[in-house]
């Protein structure tokens, strides 16, 4: 079981993480940031995250600041 | 007499194009006019703006700290440019994306749901042209007729098919405040 932390201040809504997560746990949310873009959120109700950190490795803005396993 | 306008929004709202239409309108009307964009790394962070100055004589200051009219399409631009409107000047905001606040009491405020009006025409892409319509209803030196000619000029031969939609956007923008009242 794993867990990630997303820093919305750093996130630029590139959505790379959403297609990277093998479990599909990161999603476009309905909240917008100051540029009007939809932010992403970690959505893991079933505790599927394996803490593989693939999301963090591919996030170009280090907006996924922490990954735990 | 020089009058100047700042047009601002986020990238993709077509704000530079709106400025170009406005400047063309003035040119076609036979006035002296300049258009000046923010450029380069100033553009990072997503907001874009340009300034249009119209004058009876040669335009002096192409780029000014303060402005007579600010036409802003998003909240960030409102927050930034509301500070740069001259005393007695006017800020015209897209209330679809901008909260209707009045942080200063020495300027005029006009709020119109430009985004909604554009959407009602089928595409938010014409928000910029709607906003010009609003502007011309507020500012009498901006002629609705010449704006239409400006749109025609900017669209050119290639995009002529978009003309009717844009003319409608202009008209609906012009009428926006009427309908609201």
């Amino acid at each position, binding site marked *: 079981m794993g867990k990630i932390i997303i820093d919305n201040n750093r996130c630029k809504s590139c959505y790379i993480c959403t297609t990277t997560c093998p479990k599909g746990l990161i999603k476009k949310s309905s909240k917008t940031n100051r540029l009007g873009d939809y932010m992403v959120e970690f959505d893991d109700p079933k505790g599927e995250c394996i803490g593989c950190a693939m999301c963090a490795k591919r996030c170009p803005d280090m907006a996924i600041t922490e990954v735990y396993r | 007499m*020089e009058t100047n306008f700042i047009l601002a929004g986020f990238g993709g709202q077509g704000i530079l194009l709106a400025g*170009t239409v406005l*400047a*063309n309108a003035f*040119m076609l009307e036979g006035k*002296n*006019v*300049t*258009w*000046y*964009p923010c*450029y*380069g*790394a*100033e553009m990072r962070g997503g907001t874009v703006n340009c300034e249009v100055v119209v004058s009876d*004589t*040669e*335009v*002096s*200051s*192409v*780029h*000014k*700290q303060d402005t007579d009219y600010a036409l802003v399409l998003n909240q960030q631009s409102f927050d930034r440019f509301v500070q740069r409107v001259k005393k007695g000047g006017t800020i015209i905001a897209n209330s679809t994306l901008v909260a209707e606040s009045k942080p200063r009491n020495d300027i005029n405020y006009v709020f119109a749901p430009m985004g909604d009006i554009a959407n009602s025409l089928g595409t938010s892409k014409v928000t910029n042209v709607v906003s010009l319509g609003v502007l011309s209803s507020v500012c009498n030196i901006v002629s609705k007729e010449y704006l239409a000619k400006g749109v025609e000029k900017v669209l*050119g031969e290639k995009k002529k098919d978009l003309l009717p939609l844009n003319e409608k956007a202009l008209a609906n923008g012009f009428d926006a405040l009427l309908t609201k009242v």
Partner: protein
Amino acid sequence: MADKSNEKVLIKGNYAIAQAAINAGCQCYFGYPITPQTEIGEYLSGKMQELGRAYVCAESELGAINMVMGAVSTGVKAMTSSSSCAVSLMQEALSYASSDELPVVLVNVMRTGPGLGYIYPAQGDYNQAVYGGGNGDYKLIVLAPSTVQECVDLTYRAFYLAQKYRNPTMILADGLLGQMMEPASFGEYPYPEVDVSSWALTGAKGRDARKIYSVATDEKKQIQHIYDLHKKFEVIAENETTYEEFNTEDADIVLVAFGSMTRNIKAAMNVLRAKGKKVGCFRPVTLSPFPYKALKSLADKGKDLVVVEMNMGQMLKDVKYAVEGKVNVSFVSRPCGEWLSVEEIVDAVEDIMVSNTSKSIQPGSVKEVSYAAARA
């Protein structure tokens, strides 16, 4: 869009220069991107290919200016464009081109310096352009437009003068002018074609081979060459020095500016005239040759001068040189960024008129705190 008709079009300064180059018959463009002039190359990339003319994305500005030198040596018109720090890279080539008498046309759309500086408009390259940043005794012809229309007109003139005098010619614009749009009309290229057949390299067919070079291993020839270049420039100064004067006749004080700052001093003059102040304007169109005589004659008539520049006083020095201490020469400046506004200029001039001595004014100058260069 922009063409040879007389109809006015709303166009960016950068594009105006580019289109005027096409109209002037520029056969080759060589360039490397740098803000705020990249649009010149971008505009030309498509157009030149369509016209079957030459366009090269050079590997650097050094490459670009040397390509221009090669191209113009064959008698065709060619140009490059760049900005400030990158123009610094071209100084060796410009010195060569002057000595080789090659009709290079170069556009500098100034940004802020020194060093990389930043993309804010500024006027800090006056010295480099006018004094020649390269080695040895030579002079460029330097034309400074103040409107988008002049971007067209002076580009035409640059191509003409370059070939007429076989002298590298620079259009010294600034980021403001490059980036702004304004109505302008192009019309036809108004100058006659210069006959280059007596010197251009076209292959030694039916004539002796031609050599274009600057090195002279014979001392006397070298000296003669430098004298000849000097004399040529005196002829240029005699024939081609141009400037504008507004309301100088009855003026007590004359504002002096170049490039797009001209717009602002003219507006300031109008404001001051409206207040009953006898103010005139003077503006060199050619920065090199510089209108020393015209300024001298203003000084002889006892008119105090106020130089307004977006730098720390570069043209100022030439103005002072011209007037030989005969009148007060004041200075109003900001080194970059926000163009000095009409109001700032008006305020400064009123201030100067009160004090009645030379003065240096930097409106709204930022607080003078020490600025550590190791900006941690």
